[in-house]
């Protein structure tokens, strides 16, 4: 298994690590199988992501995908942010090893949960909907068919 240079760069120098104290939206998701946990905090202004920080307990890929998702989402509209797919995350990192594709789900799901958290807090309809990795029965093995495209 090999990580791309970009994955290693984000793993070694993760961007936007931390917690926004007066966050507008908070998302915490976990992968109950391998035990990794990710938390995203958002500062939102005019339905745009003004600031974003993450904390992750997890493998190299989990940290790298968390890091890149914060870069991708910063400045995005909420609608665009929840539309980021794990495939885009993997592409942005020049690919992920097949066994590590599920780690990128953690990052995109964390973002979705944080956005919906903001919307619901403001009495609005959630836009991301259900998120797999917030579900204790989530099975990362079920992603297997997506693996072929994104090999590193």
């Amino acid at each position, binding site marked *: 298994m090999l990580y791309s240079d970009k994955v*290693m760069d984000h793993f070694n120098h993760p961007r936007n690590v931390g917690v926004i104290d007066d966050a507008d939206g908070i998302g915490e998701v976990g992968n109950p199988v391998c*035990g990794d946990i990710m938390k995203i905090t958002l500062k939102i202004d005019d339905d745009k992501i003004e600031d974003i920080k993450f*904390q992750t307990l997890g*493998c190299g890929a*989990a940290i790298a995908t968390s890091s890149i998702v914060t870069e991708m989402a910063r400045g995005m509209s909420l609608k665009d942010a929840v539309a980021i797919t794990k495939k885009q995350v993997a592409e942005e990192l020049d690919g992920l090893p097949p066994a590590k594709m599920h780690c990128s789900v953690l990052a995109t799901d964390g973002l979705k949960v944080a956005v919906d958290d903001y919307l619901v807090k403001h009495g609005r309809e959630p836009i991301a909907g259900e998120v797999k990795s917030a579900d204790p029965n989530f099975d990362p093995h079920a992603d297997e068919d997506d693996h072929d495209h994104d090999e590193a």
Partner: protein
Amino acid sequence: MDTPRRIYFDYAATTPVDQRVMDAMMPYFMEDYGNANSLYALGRDAYRALEDARERFAKGIGATHPSEITFTGCGTESDNAALLGITARKSPKGGHVIVSKFEHHAVLEPAHLLEKRGYEVTYLGPREDGIIHVEDMVVALRDDTVLVSIMHGNNEIGTIQPIKELAAAAHERGALFHTDGAQTLGKIPFDVAELGVDAASFSGHKIYGPKGVGALYLKRGTPFEPQILGGGQESKKRSGTQNVPGIVGFAKALELMLEDQAEESLRLAALREKLTNAVIERLENTEQSTTVDPAHRMPNIASLLIKGVEGEAMLLQLDNLGIAVSTGSACSSGSLEPSHVLLSIGCPPEIAHGSLRVSMGRFTTEADVDYFLEVLPPIVERLRSMSPVYDRMFGSSAR
């Protein structure tokens, strides 16, 4: 990335070939390259080298006769052959087999195959101390138990099983006993007569010999159905033209291990103690994976549980600094399952997540240990500070 040093702390995975082993092997690649089964001079020379190696290897493990040694292609092959070959000959129509839960996959997978073939297999668990206890095995033994296979030294947590007592208890119920000695051969005393085993498996690359050579000890008279069929080499027990350089290297490697075994195991045990004690002292929420006393641990394996961090992340950060270690974390397993060894001793998955195995060997120095102790704490602290749950899980003591 600048790597100031290269420190290899994964000797339990494999070892570099010792220069003296290399020198012993070299003639058999290009000069004495004959097939040991050919009649002419070149073949006879190879044959002599092969049989000389067999004799020396047999002596090294306390076997009474060189014919009790079958050279194989690796430790995995030896384990496979022992489980499948002994059961097939002793009780071809099925029966009961006991293996421990924390065996290497080289034993567990053939055990699964035996189940498919109609044998009943008991997977015997170690206790929390990481040891297979004789009393527990006695309970599992049955009148129809054909074979028991329990490893000598565990490759992940480094615990040493009481093989002599286990083998004696198995024999009392009429079962044969195999042990996987891949991790302990040469590192601590391993004498087949003293241990009283019927079969034992070994691997060359764990003791500064080459990769791709193994050995299977089969005590005289032990029933065995060959698993690799062909030209009938190795007294028909394992067909295939023998890997003469590899076998010569393996025998040399074993002799070198035995030369300074006592001092070397003391030296490594002292380094292991220094390393584990210092890690536990310098890092909160860190412990050894078992509490068994040092006398029941392999001298060269330190098995640490560093809570609240993920093992692969630690491994990669250490690699950035030139240090090679291994982990039993689910994230680095491919299957996304934590190490079956750690689970078998009751370690919860979230704790196995932060497991780190540091294994040392011939070229490990105290300076290597000092360097490791210098660089590990900041890595762990940084990863913990990036975790969303560390404070929550470990309270105010968290840093």
